[in-house]
């Protein structure tokens, strides 16, 4: 790998990075502890940043592709109907201390919202954002980053990549912008490349995952989906799910209003409802398995990549205790 590495010679890399980012005018978003969980939140005081966590409840998606986005305002005037675009609010944001899997989720958003459909709202926020990955040293029973190849952040997903190894703190440079930040720190060029340790999150072998594509009609789906509450928690917690709905909010006079884009979920009944009330994917089973296929099969065909980084959020938050890896293993296992 051709990453340029530096060794950090200061006392507190998080506080020092925080200081430089603030100097550059960034709003810093970092993991903080809230009750029993960690969340990504806007941080004013660097001492509140806590890197001792498995996963944050929310993900960078919540900031780059917001739950609700006003797109335009319409107005009926004497000279006719007027559409006024509402530009995205883009205060430059810096993510400080996100996991490699979440950085890779950003690179998947880049692919889908950036390259594939050039969403101006996403691109405006993304291009002004700064990403610092802190290497991951935590896992729980839901993590499976190593099964889907997301243990390390992909090139292009981060500006800086911080790795602790052998008592030293290393900083890898992802972009020129990243380099200009590192120059302001107490660092030395390092000839040594830090070791990225295995986490042991390879819960399902790649060759089994690849078999899923042929198993849309497998019998096992019916039983596996029977516990699903179709709540949509998996898709809203997912760092790469981007499906959306539209909502018009007229003012009481009906002469003007705003159209919003809001997140939705492919497991909801209304998701595939066409004019007249016909629902294309009627059954729980069809909607349940569709998510697996979009994330693990269709995206491979279209983009050559899984639309899943193995962060385990969908499984960790599922009120019915459904685990993605377990489901895939059972579907593949039932047909071998």
């Amino acid at each position, binding site marked *: 790998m051709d990453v340029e590495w530096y060794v950090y010679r200061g006392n507190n890399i998080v506080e020092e990075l925080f200081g430089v980012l603030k100097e550059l005018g960034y709003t810093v978003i970092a993991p903080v502890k809230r009750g029993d969980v960690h969340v990504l939140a806007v941080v004013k005081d660097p001492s509140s940043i806590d890197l001792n966590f498995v996963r944050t409840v929310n993900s960078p998606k919540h900031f780059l592709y917001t739950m609700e986005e006003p797109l335009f305002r*319409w107005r009926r005037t004497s000279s006719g109907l007027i559409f006024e675009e509402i530009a995205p609010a883009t205060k430059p944001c810096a993510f400080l201390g996100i996991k490699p899997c979440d950085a890779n989720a950003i690179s998947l958003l880049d692919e889908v919202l950036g390259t594939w*459909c050039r969403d101006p709202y996403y691109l405006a926020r993304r291009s002004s954002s700064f990403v610092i990955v802190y290497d991951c040293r935590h896992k729980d029973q839901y993590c499976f980053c190593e099964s889907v190849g997301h243990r390390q952040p992909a090139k292009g997903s981060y500006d800086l990549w911080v790795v602790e190894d052998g008592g030293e703190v290393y900083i890898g440079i992802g972009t020129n912008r990243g380099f200009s930040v590192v120059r302001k720190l107490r660092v030395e060029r390092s000839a040594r490349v830090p070791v990225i340790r295995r986490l042991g999150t390879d819960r399902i072998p790649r060759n089994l995952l690849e078999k899923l594509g042929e198993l849309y009609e497998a019998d096992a789906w019916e039983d596996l989906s029977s516990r699903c509450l179709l709540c949509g928690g998996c898709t809203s917690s997912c760092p790469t799910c981007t*499906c*959306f709905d*539209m909502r018009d909010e007229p003012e009481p006079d009906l002469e003007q209003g705003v159209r919003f884009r809001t997140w939705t979920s492919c497991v909801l009944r209304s998701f*595939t*409802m066409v004019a*007249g*009330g016909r629902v294309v994917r009627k059954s729980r089973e069809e909607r349940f398995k569709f998510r697996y296929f979009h994330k693990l099969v269709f995206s491979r*065909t279209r983009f050559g990549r899984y639309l899943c980084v193995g962060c385990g959020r969908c499984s960790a938050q599922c009120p019915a205790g459904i685990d993605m890896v377990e489901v895939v293993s059972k579907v593949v296992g039932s047909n071998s």
Partner: protein
Amino acid sequence: MRSVVEEVIEESPDVRTLVLGLEKEIEFTPGQFVMVSVPGYGEAPFAIASPPGRCRRIEVSVRRVGDVTAAIHRLRRGDEVGVRGPFGRGFPIKELENRDIVVVAGGTGLLGVSSLLWYMHMNRGVFGEVYLLYGARTPRDLLKRRHLEEWSRSMKLLLSVDRVDGGEWRGHVGFVTDLLDKIERARDEVYILCGPPMMMKVAYRKLVGRGVPPNHIYVSLERHMKCGLGVCGRCMLSNGLYVCRDGPVFRCDEIPEREIE
């Protein structure tokens, strides 16, 4: 873009055609669609039903079935709506040239193939024999009657209704798919299906049962859509293709049979 309702045409008890004057010229191919927006109510996809090409005036026909379509039905001449598009991949004209074409349309499905029918009508020499098998609920529900008459000068028109509510009717009574029995199989003919789910399923199975290969059958699909750009996810088929961007027209060997509805 902003567009003005220039004319409202009553097609049937629940279908109206809007003639829309567009702010800017668009260019579209047969089978493509636009998103029409009624501020305060929302946006929905509609096939462009007028002749393809470059134009500043298009026709869309709308059946009143929900909130957006009811709002569209309340529009009067001079009202304004938003239009985005054109979107999608229409009919592959090159693949259809020099072949016999059998179009099977049911109900508002006629609107999904109208721009293609115009194209074939205006480029008659490019195609072999063209048949239009079109079915509606009752004779009063037949859409585009003024155009059917014109199209029948360049193609064979066979009509069907589910039932006759009084009045004179010389066409078939039953399913539009029954009319397929009147078409003799050539070797290389192409079938184009657009209509309600049951019609599509029945027609597809009937054709395959008669030995027509799936790659000789095309469908234009209807799915829920919010963007038209392949990102809202609503129209994705169960093989990962987007109806808005990869379709709405598909050759049947490109999609799983369960999606032919």
